[in-house]
Each structure stands twice: as C-alpha cells, then as structure tokens.
C-alpha cells in the first residue's frame, strides 16, 4: 500500500461526498427512466393506433394485412408465428440445455467443466444475425434434402437454430440452480444407499426445480423477442398456421420489416409497429418477472 494512502483517506470530509451520492443515484435513475421511456413510447403510439382501429378488429380478425389498400389488423397470425418459432426453439433448447446443465454440474470432472463451460458461453456470444445466416443458407438447404415440402423461408429451421442459440442460456442458468443445491442433501441420499442417478432425479433436480423453471421461462422470453433469426430465415408472410414448413411472420420480424421500408411518421402503418411492440413487451415482461421471482426464491433458499 502507498504510504500516503492513509493520509489521503483521513482528510476531512469534503462537499464532494454529498455530490457523489447524488450523481450515483442519478445514474441508477437512468435505468428506471429507460423502462418508463419504453412504456411511454409504446403506449402513446398504441393509443393513437387504437383511435383508428377497434379492439374487435384486432382480436376478432385472422388476417394481418396493414399495408393493403383495405388493411386488416388481426394480430393472431403474428402471435401464432411467434409462438410457433418459440415452441420449435424450446423443443431444441429445453432437453439439450437441461442435459448439458446436469452433465456440467453433476457428472463432468473439473477439467472437463473448465474447458466446456467457456465454450458454451461463447455460443451465447455469437451475434443473432450470424445464427440467421446459418439458418437461411446452411440449415434450410440441408433440411430441404430430408423434407421435400420445405419452403426456403420457414419456421422450422429458424426455430431450430434459435433453439441452438438459446441453449447456452438455459444450460448455464440451470447449471447454476443445480450447483446451488447443498452438497449435504446429496451426501444424505448417498448415505441412505441411494445411487447417483436416483439421487439426481429424486433429490437434486426437485430441489433445483424453481431455478430450472426460471431458466426455461427466460429462454421462452428470449425466443419470443428474438428478431434477426426469424427476420432472415422465417420469412414475411403472416398466416395462421401450425405448419413449420411454410413461411410465417413473427411480431419481431414484422417490426423489422416495416423499419426497413420508409414508413412516414404518424401514419397508421407507423403506429402498428408500436402496437405490436407493446404486445411483445407485455409478453416478455410477464415471463421476465416470473423468472426473476423464481430466481430470487432460489437465492433466498441458498442463504438459509
């Protein structure tokens, strides 16, 4: 330690003390302002949208064609496209992510973990645009050889690649949840003569359940809000279908598609983007808050 550090620390209290606290609290306030800003912007434009279009037109119609001469505003095709790609993504991400988490936390040796964990984290850092390119130019042509009816823009390969992208998130959060289960529980189970696998399935996984559920919810939220993969690989055709082989449109890819055109401010089409955004925000907010609650529960359990 520097010899004069103690002297510097001992100097009489400066007015900077109070100013510092003020500046730091303003920094924290920026995060609240961001949320308020997002909600205000989405609500304001959506209210403008609702003045022109009734709720009945939005929820009772099954066609989303806001750019046609006779526009129709049924939100269901976009919601359906979003849920379809999300479901496909989770079919990939949940089983693989959980197995990877179980392997990393319970079965792998320390050397394997040190090597594999950063690799998995690296997967999460790959830009989503790159996953979109994978889906469009590498995965879709490969799948077309197996599935002849697959269109070149489709929900299947977009969803599957998105699942691959979300897998590291599900895996690392679940791994943290498994890791937080106290060792004494495992030891108690072993002492009763229970083998490793039954211990894992009857003791460890149930104890980590809330953390695993939080990981899955966050994965779903991420899949709903993901934009580039679906914009590039799933197409731009809003339709009410559960067929994963055809082109669909998600809420996010609609927003991206309209942004690419030059839509004048204040038009109805401009406002639809914010209305869809509000729908997206609400869905992810519910999932995020639920996930946060579950994780906080987990942390409290760890301390006890």
């Amino acid at each position, binding site marked *: 330690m520097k010899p004069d*550090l*103690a002297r*510097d*620390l*001992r*100097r009489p209290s*400066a007015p900077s*003390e109070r100013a510092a606290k003020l500046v*730091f*609290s*303003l*920094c*924290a306030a*920026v*995060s*609240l302002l*961001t949320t308020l800003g*997002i909600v205000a*912007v*989405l609500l304001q434009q959506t209210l403008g949208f609702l003045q022109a279009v009734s709720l009945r037109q939005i929820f009772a119609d099954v066609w989303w064609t806001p750019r046609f001469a006779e526009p129709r505003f049924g939100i269901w095709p976009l919601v359906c496209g979003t849920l379809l790609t999300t479901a496909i993504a989770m079919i990939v991400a949940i089983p*693989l992510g959980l*197995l*990877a988490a179980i*392997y*990393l936390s319970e*079965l*792998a040796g320390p050397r394997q973990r040190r090597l594999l964990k950063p*690799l998995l984290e*690296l*997967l999460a*850092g*790959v*830009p989503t*645009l*790159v996953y*979109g*390119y*994978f889906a469009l*130019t*590498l995965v879709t042509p490969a799948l077309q050889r197996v599935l002849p009816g697959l269109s070149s823009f489709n929900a299947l390969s977009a969803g599957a690649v998105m699942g*691959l992208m979300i897998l*590291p998130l599900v*895996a690392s959060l679940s791994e943290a949840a498994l890791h937080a289960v106290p060792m004494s529980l495992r030891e108690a189970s072993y002492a009763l003569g229970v*083998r490793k*696998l039954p211990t894992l399935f009857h003791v460890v996984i149930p104890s980590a359940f809330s953390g695993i559920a939080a990981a899955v919810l*966050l994965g779903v939220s*991420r899949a709903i*809000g993901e*934009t*580039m993969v679906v914009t590039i690989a799933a197409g731009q055709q809003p339709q009410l279908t559960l067929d994963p082989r055809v082109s669909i449109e998600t809420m*996010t890819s609609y*927003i*991206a598609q309209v*942004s*690419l055109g030059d839509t004048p401010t204040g038009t109805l089409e401009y406002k639809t983007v914010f209305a869809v*955004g509000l729908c*997206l925000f609400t869905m992810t*907010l519910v999932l*995020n808050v639920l996930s*946060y609650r579950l994780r906080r529960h987990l942390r409290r359990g760890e301390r006890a």
Partner: protein
Amino acid sequence: MSDDLHTPIPGATTERVFHAIGFLALLLPLLVLFVLFAGVLTDAWPRLGWGFLTGIPSRRPELAGIFPALVGSAYLMTLTAVIAVPIGIGAAIYLEEYARPGALTSLIEVNIANLAGVPSILYGLLGLEVFVRVLHLGRSLLAGALTLSLLLLPMVIMTSREALRTVPHALREACYGLGADRFRMLRLVILPMSLPGMISGIILALARAIGETAPLLTLGALTYVAFVPDSVRSAFSALPLQIFGWISRPQAGFHESAAAGIVVLLALMLFMNGIALWLRARLQRRTHG
C-alpha cells in the same frame, strides 16, 4: 477398504448410458456450431483479403468491401462505451455502496433484471421515438450510440456490481477506521481494486453489442453507406447492418460477401472475448497470490 465397493451393482449400466447422453447433449450443439462455422469460412474464403477490409460497398459483389461499416462500428462502440460505462458504474456504485434496502431499491433491482430481458428491437423503437424524433438527432451515430448504451446498461450495471462485491468487506472497515468518508474510500481503494473485474465484464458487454443488429435496423440506420462518418451527427452503417444488407440480396455473390463479413464480425467478437478471459485469469491469479 473392501472390494465390494468396486464390484458393479445393478444400475451401473444405466448410469453409464446417462453419462454418455449428457455428454452428447453438450457436445452436439458445439459440434453443430463447428460445422456451421466451417461452412461460413468456406463460403467466405474467396472474398477474404485486404481488399475486402479496405473496400467500400459496391453494386458488384466481387468488388464489395466493408471499410465504412467497420469504421462505423468502431465509432459506434467507442461512443457507446463512453456513454454507458460511466453511467453503468455509477449506478452499480449507488446500488452496492449507497442504497439502503427498501421499496425503491428493490424496484430498481427488479427493473434492471427486467431491462436485461427486454427484446433489443424494443430499444430500437425507444431510440427511434426519443433520440431520432423528439431530440432531433436524426439517424446519426449519436442516436445509435445512445440506443446501444441503454441496451448495454443493465449488463454493465450487473457486472460492475459483481466486481464491487469481490472487494473484501474488511477493506471498507479499515478505510472507515482511518476516518475516510465514503466517496474517498470508493475513489482511492474500492474502485481501483474492482476496476479490472469491471473492465473484463464491460468488454464482454461490448462484444455482445458489436453484433446487435435489430435496434440499429429499427432506428433506420443504413445498410448501404459508401462513406466514412465524419461526426457524431453523421449517418452511418455498422458491420452487422452491412452483413444484413448483403444477406437480403438474392445474388449468390453477395452471400459470399455476407459470409466474409460474418468471419470478420466473429473474429472481432472472439478477440474481445479473449481479452476479457485473459483479464479475468490475470485477476484471479492476483487475488489468489
């Protein structure tokens, strides 16, 4: 010890099978990604070269380069870091060192956790309304950097808090024991000690931001820019936007350009991740030694 413990018991085979399944589940995504990376590299190979890095976008795919987008991304990242890092560290210091537990503090915490999960395209809509339209910044570098800063903020705050938490409590008590006030303690002891950890987290956050496409797309930034931006009010392109522009074109030649752009983007991302990992390893050695 008796040999009984080593003789196989019924169930051992299931255990071994499960072990293998778990390992495969971990290996499969890594393997798929490896194959995909190899695919991109093969697509990109004919295009990669000095000319690609220093060229400007062109209507003819074999002449297309990424220089303006590369410079745009560099400016964007620098501006974003200048805006997001001080605010993020400030907020982290407030939450770790000043805030008392209470309704407001827990509101801020839930809020940050939620912001981290808000789809990035919604930040684009926020930026479009607030920075581009209300503040009249236009579709400029500054508007882009402000938008990305808000997007990065939750991540910067969370990693900075982690770093602050690694400083032992005894050091704080020692400072107070010497009669220091809180700000002086932070400036002279706590911040210098937690800075390397913060920097490694911030580099990771920036590595994530360099690939962000959706918010810039929504903001109305351009996918075709043939000039290098000269001020913060200038229009710009960025690496991921340029790549997206190329992917959206039907000609196969542009797909090669997109692949080459992706290789550059991934190289940048890996480089930044590498620096962050190296910093973290160095830091661990220092605190353990």
